């Protein structure tokens, strides 16, 4: 056995009846990174937990084998080892270590990170406290923790998200495991931090020669880090092979669908995305035959629905489990469905250049006071939005992008009226009505403006009241307005549900009966209930799985064309922004640093921050030498920042940058706030040709 781990026919059963992992075969070679890809609910994390024998109650490994090759050449079948046995305890942390998505819930808040790192060391190897400390600090240095000796004695809450992730990696690697399982380790991180952590993992793997099982839903990350890819659907591997083989010549319709639903950053940004229809069914409702067939365009009624799929070897270590490549391959014509016509039509832009802006924001400031003491005196302020000006034109989509904490959500919420701006003006001008300042509007006018400017929230679970029926959630704004009768509202709710692709019967149900994607459709229906002009989408697709995300984006584009909507689309995901936006505003530390058309921002960035964001998009396939990586994080906007806020992280910063604060300026609709933008030649987004399906 050459492989580090060989998993054969693994089955994990929950509550004695439901197979979440259903006959999975997987090999992990030493010194290689295997990426396990799939949407949520496919059983990726459960597989990882099965390897460590830490499956949550009531799940258990019900069949198959997990053979771990030991250093002395013997083989340990983990599936047959008792979870509480000393052998297993030695395997966990000693041979196999794991890192998670959310370090805050993995690290104890009560101990310093040094305590936790040295504890792992002292448990598995008999070393003294002093030696453990030295080793721990060395490890922190290894994972790129700034000032490791001091950070060793820090508590988790004193560290930033990226530093916590580094601390957790240090803890996992302190015992030099032979296999590292990384379960979505960068999903919760900013794109710039994600790029740094991916670099770190790649370097550590090269240096230590360990095997890595990397679980992710992001194919960009796969292209960045994987040697081999395994695509998982409903508890089984459907396609497996070397990373270039799978990404460049995807075979299984599911892999092809995942790749097609990824926003493209070469060619036409706004090309419509091909979504996989439907969603992953719960394991209890696993379809017979090929589990993917209800969502598959190639599916043939005469076999896919009832004939068990076999794995087919295609050469080059490329395996696929699909009837279209099996013995009956001649029956399939393997033609992908063309992009839906409605979505394609929506991609056509309608904005005239001469149009007056629908919304003109000028010098908007929103500072949150920091209060302390018994009488709550103000002792400082968080400058969340600091003198922002921008125009939104009727019928367009303005993308607002930036790292977390840059103030983009606050800006959106200020425009919609959830926060009251401290100063500045927001002129809202509908074509048939006189322009009004949103900040000065009162009474009936303010109520009318509320129905014109609506918002879609990020979390579709939290934004729908669990105590109200869908009908009342969507109709609330009309009910408050009080101009329609109950029957009229009912009819309108039904029409809205149909518009967002849901059955009108759903009106009588409660939100908990719906999946995340369906809930977001309900939230969109609510935003559209009052026939608004401007819709602010605050990370509206960030919480959704990639195929569902694509469905929602396509739907939002279609609705925009149909209803003449204007969007302010707030997101941290540059791929999504590129796909949906006509123009993009890049925000940093409460200010807009660059603003221009999508083409201009991605092909001709003028601000070093934009360049760094573009370089951090995973899967750009750049040569390692030429990449730009941002250290540090968004500065604390509570303190007074002199000069350019980005200067501390900027590779091009001069002394002059720290003196004066650069203003947003430029010509031809492409503005930037960098004093060196004239002289710098910044790199555009790299094309992701590795991610283009054949």
């Amino acid at each position, binding site marked *: 056995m050459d492989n580090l781990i060989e998993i054969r026919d693994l089955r994990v059963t929950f509550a004695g009846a439901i197979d979440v992992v259903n006959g999975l075969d997987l090999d992990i070679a030493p010194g290689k990174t295997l990426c396990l890809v799939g949407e949520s609910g496919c059983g990726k994390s459960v597989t990882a937990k099965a390897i460590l024998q830490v499956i949550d109650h009531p799940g258990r490994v019900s069949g198959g084998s997990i053979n771990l090759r030991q250093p002395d050449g013997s083989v340990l079948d983990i599936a047959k080892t008792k979870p509480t046995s000393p052998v297993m305890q030695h395997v966990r942390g000693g041979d196999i270590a794991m890192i998670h998505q959310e370090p805050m819930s993995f690290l104890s808040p009560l101990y310093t990170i040094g305590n936790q790192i040295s504890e792992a060391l002292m448990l598995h190897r008999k070393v003294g406290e002093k030696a453990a400390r030295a080793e721990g600090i060395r490890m922190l240095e290894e994972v790129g923790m700034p000032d490791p000796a001091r950070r060793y004695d820090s508590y988790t809450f004193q560290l930033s998200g990226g530093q916590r992730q580094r601390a957790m990696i240090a803890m996992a690697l302190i015992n030099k495991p032979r296999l590292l399982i990384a379960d979505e380790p960068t999903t919760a991180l900013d794109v710039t931090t994600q790029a740094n952590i991916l670099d770190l993992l790649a370097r550590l793997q090269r240096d230590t020669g360990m095997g890595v099982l990397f679980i992710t839903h992001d194919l960009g990350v796969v292209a960045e880090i994987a040697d081999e890819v395994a695509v998982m659907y409903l508890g089984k591997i459907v396609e497996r092979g070397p990373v270039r083989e799978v990404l460049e010549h995807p075979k299984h319709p599911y892999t092809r669908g995942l790749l097609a639903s990824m926003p493209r950053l070469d060619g036409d940004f706004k090309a419509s995305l091909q979504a996989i229809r439907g969603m992953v069914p719960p394991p209890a*409702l696993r379809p017979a035959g090929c589990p993917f067939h209800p969502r598959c365009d190639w599916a043939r009624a005469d076999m896919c629905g009832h004939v068990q799929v076999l794995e087919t070897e295609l050469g080059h270590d490329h395996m696929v489990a699909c009837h279209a490549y099996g013995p009956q391959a001649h029956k399939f014509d393997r033609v992908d469905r063309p992009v839906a016509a409605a979505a394609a039509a929506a991609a056509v832009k309608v904005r005239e250049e001469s149009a007056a802006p629908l919304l003109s924001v000028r010098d908007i400031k929103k500072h949150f006071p920091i209060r302390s003491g018994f009488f709550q005196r103000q002792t400082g302020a968080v400058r969340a939005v600091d003198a922002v000006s921008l125009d939104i034109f009727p019928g367009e989509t303005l993308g607002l992008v930036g790292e977390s904490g840059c103030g983009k959500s606050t800006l959106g919420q200020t425009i919609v009226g959830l926060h009251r701006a401290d100063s500045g003006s927001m002129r809202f001008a509908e074509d048939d009505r006189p322009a009004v300042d949103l900040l000065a509007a009162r009474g009936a006018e303010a109520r009318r403006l509320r129905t014109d400017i609506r918002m879609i929230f990020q979390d579709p679970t939290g934004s729908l009241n669990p105590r109200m029926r869908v009908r009342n959630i969507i109709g609330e704004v009309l009910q408050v307005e009080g101009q329609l009768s109950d029957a009229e509202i009912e009819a309108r709710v039904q029409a809205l549900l149909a518009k967002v692709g849901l059955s009108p019967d759903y009106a009588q149900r409660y939100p*908990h009966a719906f999946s995340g994607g369906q809930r977001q459709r309900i939230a969109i229906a609510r935003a559209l209930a009052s026939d608004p002009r401007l819709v602010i989408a605050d990370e509206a697709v960030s919480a959704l799985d990639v195929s569902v995300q694509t469905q929602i984006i396509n739907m939002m584009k279609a609705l925009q064309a149909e209803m003449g909507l204007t969007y302010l689309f707030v997101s941290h995901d540059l791929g999504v922004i590129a796909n949906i936006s006509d123009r993009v505003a890049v925000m940093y530390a409460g200010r807009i640093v660059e603003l221009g058309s999508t083409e201009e921002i991605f092909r001709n960035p003028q601000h070093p921050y934009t360049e760094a964001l573009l370089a951090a998009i995973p899967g750009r396939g750049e040569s390692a030498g030429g990449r730009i990586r941002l250290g540090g994080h968004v500065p604390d906007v509570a303190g007074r920042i002199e000069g350019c806020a980005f200067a501390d992280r900027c590779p091009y910063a001069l002394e002059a940058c720290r003196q004066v604060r650069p203003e947003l300026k430029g010509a031809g609709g492409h503005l930037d706030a960098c004093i060196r933008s004239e002289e710098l030649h910044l790199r555009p987004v790299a094309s992701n040709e590795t991610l283009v399906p054949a």
Partner: protein
Amino acid sequence: MSTFDETTGQVAPAAKTHQRGRGFDGHWALVWQKFLRHRLGVAGGVVVILAYVVAAIPEFLAPVTLEAYNPAYSYAPPQTLHLGRDEGEGWQFRPHVNAYKSEIDYNSGRRTFVDDESQPVDLGLFVEGESYNLFGFIPTNRHLFGPVIEGQPFFLFGADRLGRDILSRTIYGTRISMTIGLIGVALSLVFGILIGGISGLFGGVTDNVIQRLIEFIQSVPAIPLWIGLAAAIPASVPPLQVYFLITIILSVLGWTSLARVVRGRFLAMRNEDFVKAARLDGCGPVRIIFRHMLPSFLSHIIATVSLAIPGMILAETALSYLGIGLRTPIVSWGVLLQEAQNVRTIASAPWLLLPGAAVVVAVLALNFLGDGLRDAADPYSD
């Protein structure tokens, strides 16, 4: 039950005529379903319901009335219940207890009771006994159970100093003890929601002042404060008024924890996205509170209330036991326990502590019920 639609890949609802089941069930239906899965909570609920039934009709359930006494049976021990006996014709089902044979030890001056098997006291259901008014207006003399021949000695829980039946008195005590908790909590709830709501809604300095006040009140030792307040009730006040004054005294401290719960939920919910969405829908503060927020934490409040009642019951018991709470002729479990104040009495007549068992059962049942309700209050977590 939903099904997975193979053509669209969507999980589709069942036939639309079927308007029940997941998705159509509202919040309360889900809370109820989740509560039913909490076995201990359900058991607690059943006991609590029984306790309140007892509190409603003690006259019918108790074998004798509150005032019935017989000095001949002073400190008589509990009798053993026998299901049947053999009177020469084989064993027959005839539930009975045995009357006492009493002997007086002239050296110690103590009376001892011995079972007298020759004098069985036959028991029956719906027997005639002393007359009373059921619910205060239906005159009757039926009792659920008791000696078939009225006036025969029947002391399942034993008798006290005056020869009164402790079982009957405990049953009567249920009425006061179980209701004083309810009324006290109801008062606390009004204060708690009002003050907690103000604190959570306005925030800032108001919140700060109210929270410090709550901390101050909670830091005052409870028993001395109650003693002080109870001592201020003049002895001339009629017993019924004492009862109401005591509930007020108990809720003086009781509202603080409820106010904290209400404030906490207010603050947490104010930042929920669905409350923000309601603001964007144009709802005013009143509509937001009553239509969007209150339904969300009503179930939490109910759970907190059911956990607060046992505290009230225990407080009343403690006060009455110390002799500063309720006074005879009003009978609560605490008042009954006054009899068991000195060690020598307890040593010779331990059955005087049996009303304490009633306290334990009631408090445990209410706590289990409260636990079950608290777990069920948020049915969306799984």
